[in-house]
């Protein structure tokens, strides 16, 4: 990494099942304007715009980066579109940070969004391949067999997923932007909710949300000038692997482990469980919390569930996970990765409000996508790298 990069502005929309009060344009502007306001900047201060969202097929709007360019102040400026399936929000943040770190631009706006109410993700993710038998219904249909594989391998107690679902929804009650605010959330409520893709219950599944997230990245000199101290980018990593090959570990993909190792090496972290104060990870189905606790090397293989069980991942635990309520409480797919990265930055800037982890100085943002085959992560800190 050549230049230092600081996050100086963070904004997000209120996430909801149907944001009928705004168009796609209005949705992304709401997040972008909040990020600019937080950074005490205006559109003219931005050198380049990076936009990310999930497949165009979701809303059926081809090349939204063109359609949204003017709304995001992109006219006559460099504008880039990023796409890496569900991890796209994370990759969008990484591309924006890289432009600053490489010394190409001084201030970059990153925006990611999804307007699921105008789309049919379930349909778009269940397109039948020619000459095949379509059996995989949506993301849940794909991930449920992997979750079953994890349960079998780890021998984790069957209620691990229920505990994650309750914890994340309780955290969401502290986050005014979260889509789900379930005052009545409880172990029994989750346990009694119907199996959608057995072994995944309805309340162990993410909602379908409209929402956007935006962040402003600045070079060192400019980042130092802000009222609220920036979140400094210490490390970023991305890895991918093929969806299917013989002997592929679908539950714990090599790309996830390689990504974690590369990230920690860059950040100078040798004991992630100890050195990281809190982690916001991409958990669209509750069982992915223990799985990614292992995938990010916080726990030994097949022991991630113990962190959930022992309360380590609770807001008052030794490594809080998904303080914002996570993907389980808000899922505007394209934005979900950037929201994870934004929450990590909010935490180290002390801006997380009621879900602030006391004294958080170093945080992980994590996203994954496709068939568990794309990984994007970063480490941000209140201290300069």
């Amino acid at each position: 990494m050549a230049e230092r990069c600081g996050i100086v502005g963070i904004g997000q929309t209120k996430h909801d099942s149907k944001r009928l009060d705004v168009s796609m344009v209005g949705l992304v502007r709401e997040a972008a304007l909040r990020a600019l306001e937080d950074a005490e900047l205006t559109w003219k201060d931005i050198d380049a715009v990076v936009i990310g969202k999930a497949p165009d097929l979701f809303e059926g709007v081809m090349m939204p980066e063109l359609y949204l360019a003017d709304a995001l102040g992109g006219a006559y400026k460099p504008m880039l579109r990023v796409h890496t399936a569900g991890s796209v929000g994370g990759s969008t943040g990484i591309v924006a940070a890289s432009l600053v770190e490489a010394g190409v631009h001084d201030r970059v706006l990153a925006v990611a969004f999804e307007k699921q109410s105008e789309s049919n993700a379930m349909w778009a993710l269940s397109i039948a391949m020619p000459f095949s038998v379509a059996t995989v219904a949506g993301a849940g249909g794909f991930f449920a067999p992997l979750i079953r594989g994890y349960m079998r391998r780890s021998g984790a107690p069957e209620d691990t997923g229920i505990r994650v679902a309750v914890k994340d929804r309780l955290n969401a009650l502290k986050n005014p932007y979260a889509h789900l605010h379930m005052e009545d959330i409880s172990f029994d409520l989750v346990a009694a909710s119907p199996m959608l893709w057995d072994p995944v219950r309805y309340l162990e599944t993410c909602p379908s949300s409209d929402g956007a997230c935006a962040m402003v990245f600045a070079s060192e000199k400019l980042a130092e000038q802000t009222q609220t101290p920036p979140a400094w980018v210490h490390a970023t990593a991305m890895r991918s692997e093929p969806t299917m090959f013989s002997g592929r570990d679908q539950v714990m993909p090599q790309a996830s482990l390689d990504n974690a190792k590369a990230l920690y090496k860059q950040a100078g972290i040798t004991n992630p469980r100890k050195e990281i104060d809190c982690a916001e990870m991409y958990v669209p189905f509750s069982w992915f919390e223990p799985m990614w606790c292992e995938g990010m090397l916080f726990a030994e293989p097949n022991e991630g569930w113990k962190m959930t069980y022992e309360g380590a991942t609770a807001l008052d635990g030794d490594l809080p996970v998904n303080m914002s309520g996570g993907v389980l409480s808000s899922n505007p797919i394209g934005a979900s990765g950037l929201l994870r990265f934004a929450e990590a930055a909010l935490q180290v800037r002390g801006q997380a409000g009621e879900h602030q982890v006391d004294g958080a100085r170093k945080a992980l943002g994590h996203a994954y996508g496709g068939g568990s085959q794309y990984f994007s992560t970063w480490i941000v800190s209140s201290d300069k790298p």
Partner: protein
Amino acid sequence: MSESEERKPVEVLRTPVVLDYTYSAGQSSSRHLRAFGKGKLLGQRCPVDGRVYFPSRGSCPQHGVPIEGEPVELPDRGTIVTYSVNRVPSENIDLELPYAAIQVLLDGADTILFHVLGESSIDDVHMGMRVEAVWKPEEEWDDSVANIRYFRPTGEPDTPFDQYKEHI
């Protein structure tokens, strides 16, 4: 239109998109699909590690090399390595709910096949279960994986977990 209706904003406008596309299967998949049309299951070996890819394909995704060797004929039976019971409707899926979406490791293959379980209660489906293909009547065959209607339990003893765990 009344005045109040005129002022009501358009919130959502449904504009369905229809996509028709021509699919070129390629040499390797074509051979595999034509074999299906004759009731045969053809896999192919990766030249690097000798693992049998089924369905056969033109290249190994792991090693990035062409898979060009002689096809390997496989039996139409195998083991369920993992599965889920789906209770969620989807416009694209023509199966009655609930159904068990299974990942089958055919005997002699080193990759999994996505299919569906039949002639079994969904309460009985489990990892390690031995299954065999039930084919559609021959006159309904096409060059398609769908020539197999579903897999059904064979009643054989389960395959031990250690023998298929690397395929999950």
